[in-house]
């Protein structure tokens, strides 16, 4: 009721011609107590800053996720071999030096043939090996793959061609170099037609890919891939020449791993069926692997859910900070304005004697409150624009204290990669909130000022 009457008494506002002057004079009264006004604004400053930061972090998380989903393919499901932890591994392979784990060719057959929504399945095998051309040598990631690999990873060719179906059938000794590999091994020579030596075998270079940005890591399940240090050869050639066994004799120790496939990328027919297909894939693989967790299933679309989680967490944390700051800030402003009204009772009496109506007084003190909270809002907006910088700073600090041990969970990884994106519309929104707080908490003091009896107010010492 009180509020209603207050707003109504402000009706018929026609002070626009002198509004600028009104604001100017309000500033003047506030400047009378600079420190007090400054401290009063702090709550609003933090509140507004929190609102903008909250939305910026949420936006950053979802943009990050969307970008990753786009990179990995929204209709893709990626199944990767994962080396099991030592204890379980030694139990399983107690009788052997060779560690066998990961995806089998049987898995590939199962997934590509028995699930109707899977329209394409691209298997790959990866090994890191030394590669040579003449006297130059480097460690490359050897990727045994199929022709579809190019499109799936958004690669394009700078020179020559990629692996073909014919290469697969005939198990030819050809290779395609990534741009980084080509630059390092060949420098100024033309690599096409030359041969690169990998594990004592020669492979003829038939193409070179353009360089491409590394893909982002997704938690522990899928590490980032730098596509620029690769050599691509036909999957079948790789199987015949290198086998499934990878023996590492470095430092005198002997360890061997047997992995048939490192990754199978599955394309699903319809974006709406990705999630349900993922369930089927998980079930089929669990059955095939008898509960051993030597693989992981990464569904890019699920990243969106993760981003949503991050968004929710920050919404709760920063939303609470914002709400508390704004309410506390508002109460602070109300408190100061009540004190101001008492201090300036005589001024109110003078104005009334000179012809000020009740609503003029209400409007004057309301203007002062709005100028106060609006200034706080403006500072908060400026701070809000620096959210990415502030976030980066906090992240650096947090990394030193919390993430030292390196055990990057999916969540902390996502947090690390997060870059807040200030949402443009959040700036006027947050500023509007600060003005709203000014009105809400300024109305009561302003009304009590307006209701003073003119004669009493004039007599006030």
């Amino acid at each position, binding site marked *: 009721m009180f509020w209603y009457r207050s707003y109504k008494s402000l009706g018929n506002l026609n002070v626009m011609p002198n509004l600028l002057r009104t604001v100017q004079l309000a500033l*003047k009264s506030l400047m009378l107590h600079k420190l007090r006004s400054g401290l009063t604004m702090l709550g609003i400053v933090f509140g507004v800053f929190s609102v903008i930061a909250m939305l910026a972090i949420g936006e950053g998380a979802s943009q990050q996720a969307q970008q990753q989903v786009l990179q990995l393919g929204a209709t893709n499901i990626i199944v990767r071999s994962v080396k099991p932890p030592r204890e379980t591994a030694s139990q399983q392979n107690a009788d052997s030096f060779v560690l066998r784990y990961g995806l089998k060719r049987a898995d590939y057959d199962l997934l590509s043939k028995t699930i109707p929504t899977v329209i394409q399945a691209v298997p790959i095998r990866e090994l890191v090996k030394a590669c040579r051309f003449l006297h130059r040598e480097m460690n490359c990631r050897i990727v045994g793959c199929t022709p579809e690999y190019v499109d799936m990873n958004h690669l394009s060719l700078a020179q020559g061609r990629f692996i073909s179906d014919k290469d697969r059938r005939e198990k030819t000794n050809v290779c395609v170099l990534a741009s980084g590999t080509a630059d390092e091994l060949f420098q100024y020579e033309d690599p096409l037609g030359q041969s690169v030596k990998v594990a004592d075998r020669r492979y003829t270079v038939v193409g070179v890919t353009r360089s491409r940005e590394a893909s982002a890591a997704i938690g522990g399940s899928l590490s980032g891939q730098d596509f620029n240090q690769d050599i691509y050869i036909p999957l079948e050639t790789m199987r015949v020449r290198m086998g499934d066994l990878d023996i590492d004799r470095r430092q005198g120790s002997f360890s061997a791993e047997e992995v048939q496939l490192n990754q199978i990328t599955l394309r699903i027919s319809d974006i709406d069926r990705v999630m349900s297909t993922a369930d089927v894939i998980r079930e089929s693989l669990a059955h095939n692997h008898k509960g051993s967790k030597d693989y992981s299933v990464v569904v890019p679309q699920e990243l969106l859910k993760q981003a949503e989680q991050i968004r929710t967490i920050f919404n709760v944390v920063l939303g609470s900070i914002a709400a508390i700051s704004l309410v506390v800030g508002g109460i602070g402003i109300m408190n100061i304005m009540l004190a101001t009204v008492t201090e300036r009772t005589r001024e109110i009496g003078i104005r*009334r*004697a000179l*012809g000020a109506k*009740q609503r003029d007084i209400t409007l004057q003190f309301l203007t002062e409150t709005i100028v106060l909270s609006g200034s706080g809002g403006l500072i908060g907006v400026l701070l809000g624009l620096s959210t990415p910088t502030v976030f980066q700073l906090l992240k650096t600090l947090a990394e030193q204290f919390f993430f030292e041990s390196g055990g990057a969970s999916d969540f902390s990884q996502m947090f690390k990669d997060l870059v807040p994106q200030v949402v443009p519309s959040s700036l006027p929104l947050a500023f509007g909130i600060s003005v709203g707080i000014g009105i809400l908490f300024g109305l009561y003091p302003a009304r009590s000022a307006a209701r003073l009896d*003119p004669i009493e107010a*004039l007599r006030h010492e």
Partner: protein
Amino acid sequence: MSFAAQVVNIEKDYMLGTVPVRALRGVSIDFPHGDFVAIMGSSGSGKSTLLNLLGALDRPTRGKYLIGDRDVSQMTDDELSEIRNERIGFIFQSYNLIPQYTVLENIEVPLHYRTGYPRIGKDEQSRIMHLADLVGLGDRMDHRPFQLSGGQQQRVAIARALVNDPKIILADEPTGNLDSKTEEEIMGTLLKLNKEGRTIIMVTHETQVARLAKRQIYMKDGVIAGEGLFPG
């Protein structure tokens, strides 16, 4: 005959707890246009109460108060504000300037409360300059009240009272806080305003000040006890 202002048998009661205090007990005076009245009387006799009613700061408990042909005793709070803004200029004993404002801004205040809130434009600005020159403060426009002497502050208050060109000037002991030389200056200004045709009603304790008015009214216990100059 038309009057600048006319009070007809007005009474004012204040409630002091449950006991009514009868500050005015039936006062009738006519103020012709261009009148200059000094109201005198002992402390507590009801002078300020009468002046506040004349200034439309309050409504009488009973009786009529006419400004022009309008009855102030029946007006709403907003209408009282309009009357104060348009018809009346106040001068107080303690100057009552707004401390954080400059001379210019203080003189400007009544312009902010004009009916319909018209723009404060070139005309108004030159009027302010003219008034400041009239009271001899044209070169002090950006001074703040604390930088001025009492006499200078009172002259700012006079300029402020005049900015809306009111017909009636009300002054409650305007020279009460001033030395005799400054008192003469202020009274000179008031006499000049009276010659221009403005009606001036002034409360004062001092006979030499009251003597300058056209007529003197004595109050006692909330009624008019007599009229005329009673020296001593």
